């Protein structure tokens, strides 16, 4: 059973006024897809870095599956905003990287990499070079690379921010399909409110100075997409638009007050 838990977590940077995160508590149930949104500086990426193990909390506890996080590990896959792929490797070797680090034999890891590439719609692109790929393909490859070690938790740091609107929507659908198939716990950081509402089971709204959680909104549009409803219909539904405006108004009100 996998479970991500933040317990009164604070993060201070030396020489900086006020904490980046101030006593944040949050739990992710197994198989949940939680989106974190907020203005820049609200600490949403810090939240993700804590789970990934890139950062340690100044106070409080971050635990995964009941155990405190101690550094990065292959049980948590991370997808980055600017893909962070390895340009000296082709698509197949990028996807196979985690398996190579584990010492898996060449033929075995190639087979695994081929399988995840097919899952993200990159079948046939195994020997493409990173710089020959479009932004959409690179993010798919980023996903495939994170999936190859079959992590229980997937951490996505604004993965679709640099994509054009049409590509972004297809990759969002891909993410939902993968999530529906694998039942991974997903923590998605984004500044796109529509994306958060469409994908997540719960949307966590954060505010800066100090970074804290100000609202948690239940949403279920992603599950409805998996049940067969169309993306455009869901995103233009009155309930969706009402929620979007509600979140937007909340974020705006706090921006004005700050």
């Amino acid at each position, binding site marked *: 059973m996998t479970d991500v838990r933040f317990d009164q977590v604070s993060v201070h940077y030396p020489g900086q006024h006020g904490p980046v995160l101030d006593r944040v508590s949050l739990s992710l149930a197994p198989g949940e897809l939680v989106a974190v949104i907020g203005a820049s500086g609200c600490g949403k990426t810090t939240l993700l870095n804590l789970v*990934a*193990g*890139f950062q340690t909390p100044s106070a409080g506890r971050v635990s995964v599956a009941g155990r405190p996080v101690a*550094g*990065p*590990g*292959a049980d*948590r*896959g*991370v997808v*980055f*905003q*600017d893909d*962070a*792929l*390895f*340009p*000296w490797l082709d698509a197949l070797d990028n996807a196979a*990287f*985690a398996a*190579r*680090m*584990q010492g898996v034999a060449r033929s075995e890891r190639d087979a695994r990499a081929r399988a995840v590439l097919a899952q993200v*719609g*990159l079948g046939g692109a195994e020997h*493409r*070079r*990173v*710089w*020959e*790929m*479009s932004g*959409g*393909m690179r993010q798919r490859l980023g996903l495939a*690379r*994170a999936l190859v*070690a079959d992590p229980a938790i997937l*951490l996505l740091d604004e993965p679709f921010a640099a994509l054009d609107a*049409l*590509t972004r929507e*297809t990759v969002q*659908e*891909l993410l939902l*399909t993968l999530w529906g198939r694998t039942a991974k716990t997903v923590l998605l950081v984004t500044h796109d409110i529509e994306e958060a509402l469409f994908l997540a089971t719960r949307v966590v709204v954060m505010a800066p100075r100090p970074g804290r959680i100000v609202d948690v909104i239940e949403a279920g549009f992603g599950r409805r997409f998996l049940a067969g409803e169309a993306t455009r219909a869901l995103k233009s539904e009155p309930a969706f638009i009402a929620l979007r405006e509600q979140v937007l108004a909340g974020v705006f009100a706090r921006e004005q007050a700050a």
Partner: protein
Amino acid sequence: MTMHPFDSQLALPGVAEATGASAPWRVRRERLIPLATIAVLLFAWWAVTRFGLIPDLFLPSPQAVFAKLVAVATDGFVDATLWQHLAASLGRMLTAFAAAVVTGVPLGLLIGASPVARGIIDPLIELYRPVPPLAYLPLIVIWFGIGELSKVLLIYLAVLAPVVIATAAGVRGVPRDRLNAARALGASRLQLGYAVILPNALPDILTGLRIGLGAGWSTLVAAELVAATRGLGFMIQSAAQFLVTDVVLLGIFVIAAVAFGLDGLIRLAQRRLTPWHGRV
């Protein structure tokens, strides 16, 4: 889920355009202009000597230099043929270069990876690097004598600094996200080193090798000042003492051609080994 048509089509047109219809002309023009520059220079050289504007002693004609090339290649100059001079210089250069690569790259990796190593090695390199090789050449001769060792050592020191500095810069230039990505994929510290940091620094290392090679050639003549009996630098200096200007020019051209050729080899290696450089 199938791949979005938008996605698959977006990938290639950019590449196709770059190598499309207008490209061959651009490539040809880029190659032609430098050749034209050289041709004009050669013509001007020929013209001023042909009409006696500059005396032979100062500037022999291109034909005379070419004739000298043939003569020195077959009969030799100061007891050695051109090929023997060339072999002596190239041997020193390549020995020094190989030693600088074998020691400089690990030193650079160490500096980039460890603040302690950086604190120890960085000041040593920064202190000797700005000093002209001719200034410390006498010291090297006093310590290591007038044999081959001193000559190779002088060139080695000139090549070493750029290799170390470029390698260290390459190591420090690894994007944080790329390192974090590798750590999240389960890479150990050692694996980070050879599977991420080293390939990531490779473009900088190769640039360092190119700069180092250039620095090595510029030190070659100084290195062959001391008790050499063969070598292109030695040949040029001997010729200068007897005002054999055509051999001086010949030596310069041979060094230029060989240096250009070796630089081309490294550029070829850059294209082959780091094709992503500048594109990602």
